[in-house]
């Protein structure tokens, strides 16, 4: 906001300046070629401009020829008159010449002045252009800098986004892996359950409300290496029937994936709780 505010004034100024320069330039250019056609009368426009801009010069110059022109001597007599005439002629000639000379000088001066003004104008324009260019360059540089900054910011944002996306992707993968692991665990769980159930012979003292919990230790491949009763049913025969079921099963179906095996099947609990007995 402050930046925009800060630019507002220079931009307005610049526009104004441009307008002025354009105006001046246009006017200047259109005046200049017309000037040689009417050398005798300096254009009002030019003069006005000059007066406006350099009020000193025109004040001195224009009245001079008018002051010198008025005093022509009265015509002399014949010889004398001739002489006088001659003299007058010469004088007139001289004056004319002088006037012409003066005019030439004046014109040259004007031209020089004009040239100088044009020069000045050009210089100013050049200066203006330079300044403009510098300003533009500065603005461009500023813009460049800003763009760069924005680019960097964008890149940074992009990187963050990418990181988040990557993270989300990773999480999704992990979630899927967890899901798959869970499903795998469940499928092996039921495979083990069914496998062991095939070896479970309940003693006649078994009842449906009995339960025994075993701690089972396997080695990769599923071989049972240890079975311990960790929560007895209170009925030794029932407990033993469960232990024997696992022992007889011998090798349990377990995942090949060592991570999954270590996580869930190296050591796990098994609860035997008959539901299919008569009572």
């Amino acid at each position, binding site marked *: 906001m402050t930046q925009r505010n800060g630019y507002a004034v220079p931009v307005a100024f610049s526009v104004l300046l441009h307008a002025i320069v354009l105006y001046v330039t246009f006017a200047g250019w259109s005046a200049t070629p017309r000037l040689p056609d009417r050398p005798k009368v300096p254009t009002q426009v030019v003069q006005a401009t000059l007066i406006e801009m350099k009020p000193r010069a025109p004040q001195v110059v224009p009245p001079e020829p008018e002051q010198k022109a008025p005093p022509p001597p009265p015509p002399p007599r014949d010889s004398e008159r001739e002489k006088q005439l001659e003299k007058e002629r010469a004088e007139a000639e001289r004056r004319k010449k002088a006037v012409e000379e003066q005019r030439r000088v004046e014109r040259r001066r004007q031209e020089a002045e004009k040239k100088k003004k044009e020069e000045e104008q050009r210089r100013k324009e050049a200066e203006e252009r330079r300044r403009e260019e510098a300003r533009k360059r500065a603005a461009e540089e500023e813009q460049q800098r800003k763009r760069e900054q924005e680019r960097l910011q964008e890149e940074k944002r992009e990187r963050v986004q990418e990181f988040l996306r990557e993270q989300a992707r990773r999480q999704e993968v992990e979630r899927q892996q967890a899901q798959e692991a869970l499903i795998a665990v469940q499928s092996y769980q039921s495979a083990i359950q069914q496998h062991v159930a095939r070896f479970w012979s309940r003693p006649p003292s078994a009842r449906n409300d009995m339960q025994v919990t075993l701690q089972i230790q396997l080695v990769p491949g599923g071989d049972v290496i240890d079975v311990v009763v960790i929560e007895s049913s209170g009925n030794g025969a029932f407990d033993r029937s469960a232990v024997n079921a696992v*022992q*007889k099963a011998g090798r349990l179906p377990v995942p090949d994936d060592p991570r999954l095996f270590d996580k869930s099947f190296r050591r796990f609990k098994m609860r035997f709780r008959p539901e299919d007995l008569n009572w």
Partner: protein
Amino acid sequence: MRLILCLTLVLFSGLARAELLIEVTQGVDEPSPIAVVPFGWGGSEPLPEDIAQIVEEDLKRSGLFRAIPRSDMLSLPHDFKEVFFRDWKLLGASYLLVGRITRAPGAADYQIQFELFDVHSRGRLIGEMISGGGAELRDLAHYVSDRVYQTLTGIPGIFSTKILYITVERGPEGSEHRLQIADVDGARTRTILQSREPIMSPSWAPDGRRIAYVSFEDGRPGIYLQELATGVRRKLPHFQGLNGAPAWSPDGTRIALVLSRDGNPEIYIMDLVSGEMRRVTRHFGIDTEPFWAADGESIIFTSNRGGRPQIYRLTLATNEVERLTFEGSYNARGRLTQDGRHLVLVHRRSGVFHIGLQDLERGGLQVLTQTSLDESPTVAPNGHMVLYATQDRRNRGILAAVSIDGRIKYNIPARTGDVREPAWSPFLN
């Protein structure tokens, strides 16, 4: 996404932290494989009995064990030092029974030292030493069977118990009736009473030393009490009409019986000490086949008071009668398991008589047998087996056994004649 993440974490952490628990709720209940190695014997003369063989047969007959054939055995160890568990595991044995029989020079008694091992855990489950005379070798063997059975099944073994039963042989000069006693495996049969007239309703006293039965030897039914060891017997006072179905009370001081002296069969209780007689049922229908509940507080009996034979329970303190069976049109000869939970009975279904089991706690009647003309169920003292009379394919009466869960069934082939009315003894010490 955050929710998913949270769920993932919860799932994953749950998975990671809680140790896996696998629940097994079904089983196959196949017989446990057991290797009974022939017991070692260092004596010069052969032993009168093959102890290991008797044990193996006992265990096999229970239906809960499968024996590893001797011919498969890679070694014949007699004690722990000689056992290579790997061999037995290889043979598929879960349990291993080994033993050694010795007799000190000049001594009459044999000593049997036996050990039971769990092949998988390599643990010794039993290690014992017993002794007995030459005539008791079978008893020693049955004792070993009982110990093994109890250890491995959690319920007391019944291999040392005995059974009473009646045999009838029809000859050219008429029928020969015998009351016999035998080991539960059918061995060592001994005739207690032989008669040309019918013998019926043998019943054990709770001490296992006395029995009661009905004999028609006088031409009319009489109830007799007899001591097994001495053969001394006593006839209960006779009453007009039917005298039958004696049943010992659990404390052994009373006998329930059926008399028809008042017109139709009713149940009476006789005090054996005072001789006092008390009538406990009053109904114009037939009340018969009394059986005492193990707590002695009630008697179950069969009555047709509802029109069809059904089983009722009489609470002795209040004389209240409650009908127990409702399924089907014929339920009779009720016997209760020792825990009082199950009622074993003869149930007629589609015109065929089967042994049925009613769960008195949860209700529901289950038919245990596929044979027909099943009668006279008697429950083993461990409450696990039921012995009953049925007929084989040649219509000969035989004894058969069924486990109370219906899983195990076997027949005891009759040697001669018809076999009827088995009565399973209580545990004998």
